[in-house]
């Protein structure tokens, strides 16, 4: 009896499981069919499946006890049960029933129940599920038209909802970069969308998208120009040559509507650099003398980022002078060729070139690299070699001799300043005696200089210049020294007019010439030196006074140097230099003015008195700068970045500012390179309505901050009571 009960329970349990399985299979089939039709996997499909499941449970009554059904099945499949199993359900049995039960019990222990038959019902559901599985996995492989027809026939969803739910997504992207063959760089592939390659490389994009049916994929640049990808099976391929730097994005269109847009990626073209030539010689201008070797040895190191194809020297010999100059150009190919880096040497045989005295040779290094189709050409500076013709002495050289004296003098004053400063710097290291000696020597130099200028102004020369030996023979207490070098203007000392007797003038006395300064002697041959120096020097009045002032400063400077006070002498030295410089400028101006001197224009009379009858009276122009500056746009965007940026909800003014700024900077990429790329990328992301993380916001902030105007353009002020302010201002004064 116990066996029989166990059998009933077992069958009943199996029936429940089978019912549950049927429900599950129906729900799964429904889900898969819906997924296949809608082409998406959303929670809506799951809800649909759940509904089917619940409905099936209700239909199959899985929640009800299946004991009676189990008994019926046992009756059907086990004959020995004799349709008497209901007796088990009864509590009060009569005698006949008890006997029947005992009989069945004994028979049933030998009988076997065909459990497998219970599962026969499942075949149908397996079939349904099989169809659903085929539908689910098979529908993407069906031709589009069939799919569309099915969708239309089923008419499950409106078209709009379908388009939204089935937006394409990027699954994989492969970039293949084939560098130009001459570079020798192997082909490479990567999934990095930011491309950096040698200019001229071939780029192949291979993009795979989900839900890509009916999608047209395009490569878009920042100006909105687009080129379409080619569809190969499920992938999109585009091939092009890299010619310049810029940004690009990939856009997918379905029925003309933008359904996929990537962020912006950079595309950087690295140019093939021309050959770098570094000649060994730094001297561009050289003289060649008669005694020099006639074989000129030159060398240079050359390198290229790929290969130097050919290098050569181009030499030009110039002969003749004036209008009769002839040029001859010779090109010397150099070896080795086809190298990456090498030191190239060449010996130029000057005899072979016919290089003669008075000729000039110009030569430069040149090289081409292996770039294709057009090689890069580069050349070095031009070197000059001048064959010195000692037979000719130009008159101009003589002429400049006298003129060159002036700058030399100016240098001397500067030299005195330099020496004084040097002495002051070394003051601590030197002993007092050494210090005094050097100071005295500089004082001596100052005196020499003063006397040289003096001679320009018609003052007397001194051959025996200088304050005598150090320690002073003239006066033991040193007061004599000071007096000797003080340019007194208060009626004492040398400078006092009339008090110090003028040294005697000895013109025309040949014996005195020997005692003169040799320079003065030389000068005497060129300058017309009359008795009255004041009247016969070549300087205009202002120049003369300037030189005099310079001499006065030199006096003072010399004084301090002689009494070992170089620090006090320095300001006078500077002043002297300044006056000398001014005198030099004056002299130049004088020469300039020596030509035509136009009569002065009477400005007040002439101005605004021109003939005006043919002129238009309407001289009003109107201009408008409608574009905001980059700083204004950047400031506007920055002011928004601390708002909670929500996806796809950028205010119109910010969208406009970001768009304008982005477009402006993108157009500058060819000029400014990729320096703005990182910031632009985030800006584009913000514009496309995507959320930015904290790192991106901070990066964008610092990038835009550099573009803002950071000058003070407003001082905080308050409008106050006018009278009160007026009184305050009066009191302040």
């Amino acid at each position, binding site marked *: 009896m116990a066996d029989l009960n166990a059998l009933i329970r077992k069958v009943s349990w199996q029936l429940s499981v089978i019912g549950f399985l049927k429900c599950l299979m129906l729900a799964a089939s429904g889900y898969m069919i819906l997924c296949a039709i809608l082409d998406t996997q959303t929670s809506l499909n799951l809800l649909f499946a759940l509904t089917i499941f619940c409905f099936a449970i209700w239909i199959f009554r899985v929640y009800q006890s299946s004991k009676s059904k189990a008994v019926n099945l046992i009756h059907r499949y086990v004959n020995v049960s004799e349709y008497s199993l209901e007796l088990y359900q009864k509590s009060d049995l009569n005698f006949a029933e008890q006997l029947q039960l005992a009989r069945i019990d004994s028979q049933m222990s030998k009988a076997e129940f065909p459990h497998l038959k219970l599962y026969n019902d499942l075949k149908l559901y397996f079939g349904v599920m099989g169809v659903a599985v085929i539908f689910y996995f098979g529908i993407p492989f069906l031709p589009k038209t069939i799919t569309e027809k099915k969708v239309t026939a089923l008419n499950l969803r409106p078209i709009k909802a379908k388009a939204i739910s089935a937006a394409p997504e990027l699954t994989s992207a492969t970039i293949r970069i084939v560098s130009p063959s001459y570079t020798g760089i192997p082909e490479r592939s990567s999934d990095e969308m930011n491309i950096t390659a040698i200019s001229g490389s071939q780029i192949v994009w291979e993009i795979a998208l989900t839900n890509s049916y009916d999608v047209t994929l395009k490569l878009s640049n920042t100006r909105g120009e687009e080129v379409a990808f080619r569809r190969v099976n499920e992938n999109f391929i585009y091939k092009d040559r890299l010619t310049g730097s810029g940004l690009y994005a990939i856009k997918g269109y379905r029925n003309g509507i933008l359904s996929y847009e990537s962020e912006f990626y950079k595309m950087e073209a690295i140019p093939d650099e021309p050959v770098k030539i570094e000649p060994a010689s730094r001297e561009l201008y050289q003289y060649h003398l008669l005694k020099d070797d006639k074989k000129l040895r030159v060398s240079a190191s050359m390198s290229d980022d790929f290969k130097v194809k050919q290098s050569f020297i181009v030499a030009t010999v110039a002969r003749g002078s004036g209008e009769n100059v002839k040029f001859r150009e010779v090109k010397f190919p150099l070896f080795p060729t086809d190298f990456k880096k090498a030191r190239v040497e060449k010996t130029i045989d000057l005899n072979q070139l016919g290089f003669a005295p008075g000729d000039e040779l110009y030569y430069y290094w040149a090289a081409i690299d292996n770039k294709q189709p057009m090689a890069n050409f580069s050349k070095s500076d031009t070197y000059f070699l001048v064959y010195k013709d000692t037979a000719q002495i130009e008159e101009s050289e003589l002429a400049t001799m006298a003129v060159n004296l002036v700058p030399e003098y100016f240098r001397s004053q500067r030299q005195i300043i330099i020496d004084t400063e040097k002495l002051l710097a070394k003051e601590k290291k030197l002993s007092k005696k050494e210090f005094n000696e050097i100071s005295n020597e500089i004082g001596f130099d100052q005196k020499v200089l003063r006397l040289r200028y003096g001679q320009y102004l018609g003052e007397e020369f001194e051959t025996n210049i200088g304050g005598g030996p150090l320690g002073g023979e003239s006066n033991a207490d040193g007061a004599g020294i000071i007096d000797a070098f003080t340019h007194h203007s208060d009626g004492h000392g040398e400078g006092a007019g009339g008090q110090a007797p003028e040294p005697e003038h000895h013109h025309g006395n040949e014996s005195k010439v020997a005692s003169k300064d040799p320079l003065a002697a030389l000068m005497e041959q060129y300058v017309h030196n009359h008795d009255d120096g004041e009247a016969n020097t070549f300087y205009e009045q202002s120049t003369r006074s300037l030189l005099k002032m310079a001499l006065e400063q030199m006096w003072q400077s010399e004084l301090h140097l002689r009494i070992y006070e170089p620090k006090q002498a320095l300001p006078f030295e500077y002043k002297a230099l300044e006056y000398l410089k001014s005198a030099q400028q004056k002299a130049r101006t004088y020469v300039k003015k020596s030509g035509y001197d136009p009569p002065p224009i009477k400005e007040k009379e002439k101005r605004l008195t021109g003939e005006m009858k043919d002129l238009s009276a309407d001289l*009003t122009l109107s201009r408008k700068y409608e574009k905001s500056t980059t700083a204004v746009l950047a400031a506007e965007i*920055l*002011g928004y970045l*601390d708002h909670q940026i929500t996806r796809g909800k950028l205010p119109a003014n910010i969208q406009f500012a970001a768009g304008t700024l982005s477009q402006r900077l993108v157009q500058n990429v060819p000029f400014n390179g990729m320096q703005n790329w990182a910031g632009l990328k985030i800006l584009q992301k913000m514009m496309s309505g995507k959320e930015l993380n904290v790192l991106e916001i901070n990066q964008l902030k610092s990038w835009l901050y550099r573009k803002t105007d950071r000058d003070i353009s407003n001082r905080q002020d308050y*409008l106050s*009571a006018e009278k009160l302010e007026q009184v305050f201002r009066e009191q302040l004064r």
Partner: protein
Amino acid sequence: MINIDFDWSETVSQAILSLLILLLIAYFWIVFRKPEATRASRFWVKFCLHILLWLSLLGLVLKPYVVRTAKTGTALIFGNEVPSAFSDQITDSLQAAEILSINKPGFSQIDTLVVVGEDFPQSFFERIMLSQCQPQCMQWIPFEQTGHIKNLNWKGILRQGEIQRIAGSLNENKKGLLKLKYGNAFIDSVLVRSGRQVFNFAFPAFSNGRTLMTLELNGKTTDTIRFYSRKLESLKIRFLLDSPDFETRTLASWLGKNGHSVDYVSSLSKNMVSEVKINDSGEPDILIVDPQNLGKDLDKKYLEKGKSILVLNLGDLSTDINAINKSFKTHFQVKANIKDSTKNTSETTLPYHFVLTGSQISLSKFPVTAEKKSGMIAVSLLNQTYPMILSGDSLAYSKVWCEIMAGLRPVTKSNIDIQSPVYQYIDKNMILNNFGPMPDFLKVGQDSIFLGPSAINPRTSTATLRAGKSGWVSFVDSLELYVEAKSESRFKSAYMADFLRKYEVYQSELQYSKTTDKAPVRTSKKEMPEWVWFSLILCALLAIWIEEKI
């Protein structure tokens, strides 16, 4: 003097008292009803003990207290965050002061309360205000934790291009670097030495809207600074020149490109004037003239209206400066620069400089000086600035002219001066100036705040804001103000400062009323605690019981 606070008028009180009297009668009746009891040897002992018991019960009910004239003294109270080392240091220096507990402070014996630190529970402030015997004076010793920035303040709302100043103090025990950061960019930084110090950052506001900056001490973010930078109105500028020249034309073009409206008028010939209008100008804010156009009625009319005048292209300085001074009654003086041969001479400016008087200000590092009248009168000794822009250094050009234009800009409208941080539930004063007709109230978020006119300036009003909502709140029309939440770490310090300020006002008002009314005597209340009464009852019961047993 013994006082009782028992409410005789209340029925419950009357009932309790009646019961107590009944108890006394019943009690004596029970104890002394037998005549032999009164004759017992220890009758008076027993009697006294019973009286004591009853009195203890009465004391428990009535709770009598003694009122005395209050003593004066100083008390110290320490905030939760104050470490023992710091509190010991303060206690040592104020040895006479009584130290109060933060949880149950008594203020009866003190007239000066020294509060150390800022972390006090809300109940502390309530206790002070509810105390019958409040300290007359409260002093605050803030506790500055190492590495924490205190007294941080900045402008809550300002215009673009206006100088933002961020100041604060810091107590640090090691050398370091305090940086002001915007995004990843460093705006400014100061070296931090060990010890207490104040710092100050100043930079022109560059954004147009909400701005968030951070302060980083040794690479660690310590504070966040939020302010609103409002758009700066563009200027209307009129050039009135005797002849067009490259310098002014470049300036006009630069101004136009920067969004300002320019009207460039220059004489070409007799009765022939060229006019270039850039960005549709209206009545000018700034008039730029050359010395030949000085002294016209137009100039003075503009000046009276509070507009500014800039005189440039000076030729003969002594004549031109005299003409300017005569026309506008100004006091400009120039002096030739001392030639220094070691320095390179610049062609940008004339070789002169201004001798400034009290009412004059220098507008730039270059010799451009302004004197305030109703508007500004400025004189420029700039000679050629256009080479800067031609050589590509537009930043330097922009810096020079931005500074000058900033000084000449007439007073802007709707000025708001509010110092940040503004905290939730803490009063904040603000000043409003030049609002045209001053409104009666302002709208801040969902609230309205009323304005009070200033006594000395009819164009200024003041208002007090007490924000109930934290975060960015809309302010006036299109502006925003950041209100720091109550939960911010800086809040406690601000709350304490606000409380002390208000308490001082409150006490001074009290003092004022004391001088006008009859001054109450400052007293202190001494009450016996309840446990003493309970102990007395127990002791009396025990004594009665023992007395029976003996």
